[in-house]
């Protein structure tokens, strides 16, 4: 998978960013472990041991990744279209934010429509009602028949009652 050095637009910037992220992700458990009183008890090793091992390992892996970045590219990454990421990510954010106020069907319907939009189907007049309808059927089956208790909202109350 490793391409030759210097063939890409940005030779190895991505690898340094990944290495930095890994180092941060390794530092967090180390910092957290330092705040834990190490009550190892009879075992000799306590709750802080594992985070320390993992933290140092991640930092070592970060260093290896960074060193490797000088030798060649980490991976050949195809050209990415960022627009769909915003559509789908935005849909998820909206779903999380609105779930408890407008209910499962409407919030999930929005996610459904934005996902379809992310894949190029931007006709929200069509996808939104389909998504809400689909989500509502799912809600009716799981919440009412199976008692799974999904968050309800005005739509669910209106059609199915409290």
């Amino acid at each position, binding site marked *: 998978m490793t391409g030759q050095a210097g063939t890409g637009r940005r030779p190895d910037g991505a690898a340094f960013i990944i290495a930095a992220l890994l180092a941060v992700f390794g530092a967090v458990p180390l910092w957290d472990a330092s705040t834990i009183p190490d009550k190892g*008890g*009879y075992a000799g090793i306590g709750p802080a041991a594992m985070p320390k091992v993992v933290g140092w390992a991640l930092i070592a892996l970060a260093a290896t990744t960074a060193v490797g970045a000088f030798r060649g590219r980490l991976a050949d990454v195809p050209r990415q279209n960022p627009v769909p990421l915003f559509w789908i990510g935005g849909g998820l954010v909206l779903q999380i934010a609105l779930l408890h106020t407008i209910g499962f069907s409407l919030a999930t319907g929005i996610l459904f429509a934005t996902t379809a939009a992310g894949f190029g189907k931007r006709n929200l007049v069509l996808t939104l009602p389909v998504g809400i309808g689909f989500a509502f059927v799912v809600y009716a089956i799981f919440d009412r028949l199976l*008692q799974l208790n999904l968050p309800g909202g005005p739509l669910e109350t*209106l059609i199915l*009652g*409290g």
Partner: protein
Amino acid sequence: MKHAILGAVLAVASATAAFAEEYTIMAPAAPGGGWDSTARTIQEVMVAEGISGNVQVQNVPGAGGTVGLAQFAASTAGDPKQLIVGGYVMVGAILTNASPVSLADVTPIARLTGEAVGIAVSASSPIQNINELVEMMKADPGAVSWAGGSAGGVDHITVGLLAKAAGIDPTKINYVAFSGGGEALAAILGSQVTVGISGVGEFLPQVEAGALRMLAVSTAEKWPGTDAPTLMESGYDVNVQNWRMIAAAPGLTDDQKAAVMADIDKLANSAGWKAALETKGWANTYLAGADFEAQLAKEIEATTAVLKDIGLVQ
């Protein structure tokens, strides 16, 4: 036409909403667990016995019930139709998780069911009774490994209380937490540990089959199904029960609280509830009102002290 249908739907919806006794019970655990099945059994019996027309169960899992408890206390103040299921595990979890919300932030109504904690050894173990076990602990506490449920749970607390009552330093106990009663039981049966501690119900079938020997139970009185002595009888001042309770929202007026208590009293004394307890193998340890509140206050105090002694709470 559309408006007529909509109107009818709205009428039905508001009629349902207007039904006087509609409860929502929060189970502060994921579907399928003990608190969830308690909540769902209450739901079933309340509807079947006509105590309430419509009961909803809401699951809010997390951190020994403290996530659900916090949400309940914050969002239901003054609403007499909101109930929450809880248990002794919560008392410990509130302390060990340093939860900002405690049982003082809700209105405890009644203890519904409970179970004794049992202490047992493998049938092949040389230990014959609880006093021998305590003597071993006095000689070398580290050499007596205890298998039980999660750290800071009722099993762990009971070991701590026993150590304290026997004059052994509770920080010296060698408690090995297992993720569930099942895994702990396997370790006891396989003689991987010295002694096991868990709900009596988990041990009884093994005791009957002759694979385990029950040394003691933790309640004030002997537990049905075993003639093992209580810890009190054996000379250790320990009385623990792993109970489940129901509580109402904070900030209720006296009338509202009385109404909820009346409904729960109806539930606890109904034939349907007793039948449900029977089939699920839950013991009826119903205790309501001031008696329960006094008992609860006493247990919270004792638990706080022992968790500090074990070193789980600063």
